């Protein structure tokens, strides 16, 4: 088996039809895994064909949908080695006073309850020694105004992941959360206002892309290379949540001559 071997592993990914989930599905299929992606999109089957996966039509925002997804995947694959609970929605920016109950419930269904059902119903379909990966967000640990209910759900799923790691360790099932920072994907398209603002805050001076920067983390956590890592919330944000970057200080008006020479305006950061 190859180093980060996924040969023959049976992988189920919620929210696999776009963004990080789609990139993970494509890479895992290329690495020899049998991949199922789950979603409600009409073009889900076409996306699955494109990335070399199987499409399971199910609504992950409902308990019945999660049951249906697990049943279909188990029927086809005969069991699961990796479960990636990745589906998420961006409920939009609003102060708490203006988040209506519809947005609150929808966020709760997709960003929290889907993970709860996945972690409570999924393990019966997983082999011993399986790996579970939950997509959270840096908002779980680093708060930004107007994202309250999204951030709360993303923090809550980290808690669920840790509890699952403890409850499932006796079956050698590992559970870890991935906390991406701002990532270029359908949820944050290239013209999104966040991008130039957040870019200044990034010590590494660039946003993540799913293919180049995040898929490798999912692959590591899915493979046996990470065999002693469980219950962790792993931040992949280019250092954004560490503190203030040079870019932030410059934007706030700090004098450029106090900066490290490589961090001054007009200096190209390295890839």
């Amino acid at each position, binding site marked *: 088996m190859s*180093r980060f071997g996924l040969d023959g592993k049976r992988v189920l990914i919620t929210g696999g039809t776009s963004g990080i989930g789609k990139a993970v599905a494509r890479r895992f299929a290329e690495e020899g895994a049998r991949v199922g992606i789950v979603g409600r999109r009409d073009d889900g089957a076409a996306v699955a064909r494109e990335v070399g996966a199987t499409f399971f039509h199910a609504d992950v925002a409902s308990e019945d949908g999660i049951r249906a997804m697990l049943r279909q995947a188990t029927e086809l694959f005969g069991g699961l080695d990796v479960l990636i609970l990745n589906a998420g929605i961006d409920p939009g920016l609003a102060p708490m006073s203006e988040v209506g109950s519809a947005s609150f419930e929808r966020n709760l269904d997709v960003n929290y309850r889907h993970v709860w059902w996945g972690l409570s119903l999924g393990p019966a379909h997983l082999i011993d020694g399986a790996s579970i990966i939950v997509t959270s967000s840096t908002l779980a640990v680093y708060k930004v105004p107007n994202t309250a209910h999204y951030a709360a759900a993303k923090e809550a799923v980290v808690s669920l992941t840790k*509890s699952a790691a403890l409850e499932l360790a*006796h079956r050698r099932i590992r559970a870890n959360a991935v906390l991406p920072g701002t990532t270029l994907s359908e949820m944050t398209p290239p013209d999104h206002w966040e991008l130039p603002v957040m870019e200044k805050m990034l*010590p590494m001076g660039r946003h993540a892309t799913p293919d180049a920067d995040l898929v490798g983390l999912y692959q590591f956590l899915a493979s046996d290379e990470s065999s002693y890592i469980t219950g962790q919330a792993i931040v*992949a*944000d280019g250092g954004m949540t560490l503190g203030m970057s040079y870019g932030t200080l410059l934007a706030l008006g700090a004098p450029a001559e106090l900066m490290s020479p490589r961090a001054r305006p007009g200096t190209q950061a390295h*890839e």
Partner: protein
Amino acid sequence: MSDRPLDGKVAFVTGAGRPRGIGRAAAIELARAGADVVVSDVARPGPRIGGVPTVAEDDGGLHEAVAEIEGLGRSGFALVLDVTDESEVRAGVEAAVDHFGRIDVLFNNAGTPVGVKPFLELSTDDWMHSWGVHVMGCVFTCRAVIPTMQVNGGGVIINNSSASGLRALPDYGAYTATKHALIGLTKTLALEFGPDGIRVIAICPGDIATDMADLGIALAAQELRLDPADQQSLAPIDTIALRRRGEAAEVGRAVAWLASSGASYISGESIVIDGALMEGL
């Protein structure tokens, strides 16, 4: 991800002299991932505790490591240096760059159990030694290596902190404080050198089956006047969710992955490798 994501890279590992150690295991995993590896160690008699060595006392382990690296088809280079002595570190880094032409990955792994003692018994020398190895050792290697990484357009620095870098244990006073300090240093370096394409990451291993961990447990048992047979109660497997100690190779594999482009957006973080020892009961 390729099977050999570090092909063409050069890694520099400190504290690689002991056969059961994380440094040796990481050197081997870095080589398996394709890197040529500089293995360094203090490799001379150092502090002993209850007659038990706390370091590799000769360079035999380094030469074994080089032989193993070469058995994997990579080049190894053994260097004797004391990370607490800046002139030895500078000379060692120069020799490594002369030999391989570059350093892409620095694994600051050298550590010491001096500093595991009841607080009132820790001498100032114990504190300074713990600080010297865990913090200044990293400062000295980083001062020497970062300029070469800047010229190369980037690199990865991985600092071996500990579960004790995030949590405390009684009788681990200086060890805990200096391992915490290493995490702060990691974050600062990540912010300062991010613009140069240098990623800086701490790892926090839990109970890994190494000589140093065994000595730490034995020392704490001695303080509590436990029968050696009862030492296991100080590192109870039952508190680890995965119900087993980690192997040095499992830490080594995480180091090799963090050094690769698979971890290209991770910087400043503390990666815990503990079988969920610290996540709860």
